[in-house]
């Protein structure tokens, strides 16, 4: 299989190369990171419902809609991407496509473990360390291929992520920030100095070679560059970004597998902020300490004080 170990590349290239491979019917593995930040919507995300566009515009954050699933993500140079494109008829793909995550995520799990994280798979598609998600993943059919994409979080700007999403109010935004800090983790939480790109990409490439056989290092060729350029126009086009998507009656943001923050309307026009975790629902106004247990880092505990603000009736 071809390996495109590209290190830092233009933000749009980090999405368009794997789409281009898929549309060209070429298998390959891409490892890279974006040299500048951007916001990426899932195929069925509704732009108006999900994004605070004025915030993104003010920050100069470009938008792109990918053809894989999952939700809105903020992406920057503190995330290392690994993207695998396989032809639909590749015999390694199971009939139930979600089952392949187990295979696809092994190299990232081993890389995280190598650098000291107690990383493990949380099915179907999360990598967690001590129950906290440390990798974002998505997949989908593109052209005659399937693409599985993921990233490893070296660090993450929780403030920015909670600001760029459209939220019903400041209380929800604060809860979102604290909940993300509670249920997500990054290599920076565990290591005084996160591994370099070279260290991580080497570990990932070795893992993928172990899973899928020898990798043939190469650079994008003319055909791939041309297709990626064409796709940039389409995936960032205003009409494509504005396609109607999955609308929900209540504001609901997925934080990790089985964990959602929800604003739920109730009597007298008031609304409540609920945390749904593994089927259990908790009203955060009733449990201001929910997100500040001993498992949260000191920084997170500090941020959890935001919940007191909500509990105080703000």
């Amino acid at each position, binding site marked *: 299989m071809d390996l495109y170990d590209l290190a830092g590349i233009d933000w749009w290239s980090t999405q368009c190369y794997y789409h281009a491979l898929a549309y060209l019917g070429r298998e390959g593995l891409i490892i890279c990171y974006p040299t500048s930040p951007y916001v990426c919507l899932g195929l069925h995300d509704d732009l108006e419902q999900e994004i605070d566009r004025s915030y993104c515009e003010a920050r100069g954050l470009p938008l792109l809609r990918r053809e894989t699933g999952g939700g809105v993500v903020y992406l920057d140079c503190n995330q290392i991407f690994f993207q695998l494109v396989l032809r639909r008829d590749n015999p390694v793909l*199971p009939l139930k496509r979600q089952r392949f995550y187990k295979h696809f995520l092994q190299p990232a799990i081993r890389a995280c473990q190598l650098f000291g994280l107690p990383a493990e798979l949380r099915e179907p598609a999360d990598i967690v360390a001590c129950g906290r998600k440390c990798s974002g993943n998505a997949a989908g059919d593109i052209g005659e291929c399937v693409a599985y994409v993921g990233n490893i979080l070296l660090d993450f700007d929780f403030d920015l992520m909670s600001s760029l999403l459209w939220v019903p109010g400041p209380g929800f935004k604060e809860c979102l920030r604290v909940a993300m800090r509670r249920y997500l983790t990054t290599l920076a939480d565990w290591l005084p100095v996160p591994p370099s790109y070279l260290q991580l990409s080497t570990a990932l490439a070795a893992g993928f070679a172990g899973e899928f056989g020898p990798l043939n290092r190469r650079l994008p060729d003319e055909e791939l560059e041309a297709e990626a350029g064409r796709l940039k126009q389409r995936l960032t086009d205003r009409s494509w970004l504005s396609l109607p998507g999955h609308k929900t009656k209540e504001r609901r943001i997925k934080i990790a597998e089985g964990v959602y923050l929800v604003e739920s309307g109730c009597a007298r026009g008031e609304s409540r902020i609920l945390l749904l975790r593994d089927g259990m629902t908790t009203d955060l106004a009733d449990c201001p300490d929910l997100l500040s247990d001993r498992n949260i880092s000191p920084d997170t505990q500090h941020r959890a004080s935001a919940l007191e603000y909500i509990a105080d009736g703000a």
Partner: protein
Amino acid sequence: MQVDKRFVPEGLLYARNDYWVKATADEAVIGLTAYGQDVTGDILYLELPPVGDSVSRGEDSGSIESGKWVGRLLPPVTGTVLERNSVLEEDPSGANQDPYGVGWLIRVRLADPSELEVLLSPAAYREWIEEQIRREQEEEGAL
């Protein structure tokens, strides 16, 4: 409510990519089979083709998102979309819970009724999904 993935009603035609077709004169209703929805998993969102659009057999005509996966909607026959199941756009769970009833996807005017001849009978489709289920079990062991 879980539907039996082996449920294959009589009176319909089937495609190997797990769609059913109910043909009447020059029209057909299309849906995902019980086995198809089982392989897909819990459906979160369905993007169906608009009324008036032409769809072609086996060609990308929409998408189906389930959990951490987006698959393509590949209709088993060619035609013009006369109606789409708008209920599923708000709540796609019908495609999982009642795939042969409230979970139908689109109704089309057939462009080439001879395409129906290559579809499978219920008995042939039952054989097909048994093969697939055996393959799934092997995969489960391998993974």
